[in-house]
């Protein structure tokens, strides 16, 4: 399974539909302070089933929905989709006949979020299992948020053990 494309609309500062193609090798993301780079990382974590608003730097999960600027009104809907290339046929059995897998998460202000995989409505649990089988997911140690390197250094030895368990 390869991650091929991330699409977002109404998610944090990305109010307009935005598409990030994820290609092999090293892709750099640059831009001034406050322009939305870390928001992209959060969109990826969120579509993979993140359930904690704090991980999204917000107070509640509705904080991921575009909340307006001095020039534009707030939105009530946010949607992120992740396109996965399954040419190597490594997806879980239920989905392995598909060449492409599209995972979509959508949230409406005040009424929670819903997930779809290739058009079919699924539970958060199903999405989390899909990614866990692919050694990824919202809590993968390979997603390193800003400032998290410091947390590894200052962690107590028993907290660092959690890293080992991811490798087991």
């Amino acid at each position, binding site marked *: 399974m390869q991650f091929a494309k991330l699409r977002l609309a109404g998610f944090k500062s990305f109010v307009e539909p935005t598409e990030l193609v994820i290609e092999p090798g090293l892709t750099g*993301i640059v831009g001034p302070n406050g322009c939305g780079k870390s928001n992209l990382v959060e969109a990826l974590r969120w579509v993979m089933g993140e359930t904690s608003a704090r991980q999204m730097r917000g107070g509640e999960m509705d904080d991921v929905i575009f909340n307006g600027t001095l020039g534009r009104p707030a939105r009530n809907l946010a949607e992120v989709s992740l396109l996965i290339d399954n040419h190597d046929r490594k997806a879980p059995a239920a989905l392995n006949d598909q060449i492409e897998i599209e995972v979509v998460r959508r949230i409406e202000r005040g009424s929670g979020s819903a997930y779809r995989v290739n058009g079919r409505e699924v539970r958060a649990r199903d999405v989390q299992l899909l990614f866990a089988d692919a050694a990824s997911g919202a809590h993968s140690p390979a997603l390193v948020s800003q400032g998290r*390197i410091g947390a590894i250094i200052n962690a107590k030895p028993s907290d660092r053990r959690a890293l080992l368990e991811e490798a087991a």
Partner: protein
Amino acid sequence: GRERLIVAFEAVNRHFQDLFVRLFGGGRAHLTLTEAEDPLDAGLEVMASPPGKRLQVLSLLSGGEQALTALSLLFAVFLANPAPICVLDEVDAPLDDANVDRFCTMLDEISRATGTRFLLITHHRLTMARMDRLYGVTMVERGISQLVSVDLRAGEQIRLRAAE
């Protein structure tokens, strides 16, 4: 449970020792499982000595040395169970130019070996110069993010300036 943890520990420790030497250009380091009745309750201690220095605990290293050691540990865990995607948000901020260079070389090698796709958020011009491609995020309209693909020629400009 216990068996798996010990096997994982040994694999991560081997990778950690190798990556530490590659990132620091020398020195040595190792992981130890702290004493506990049950290995499932043990903690992970990191001992490291940069080239030419004595072996010490993490807290006595400098800011940049700590970050580099943490990256060695992170990628040691990663290599034990490689993920299809890896996203790094300004992990190069505390590093000097020589360490940024070794770090990018390591990422290049890992990406070729495992096929993992990397997204690197950075302000460091040397890191930008080592990427296969660059995306820019701008806020032409205040508060509204827009993603643009940076023309590699412009990227080339960054490479040339960084290489001076």
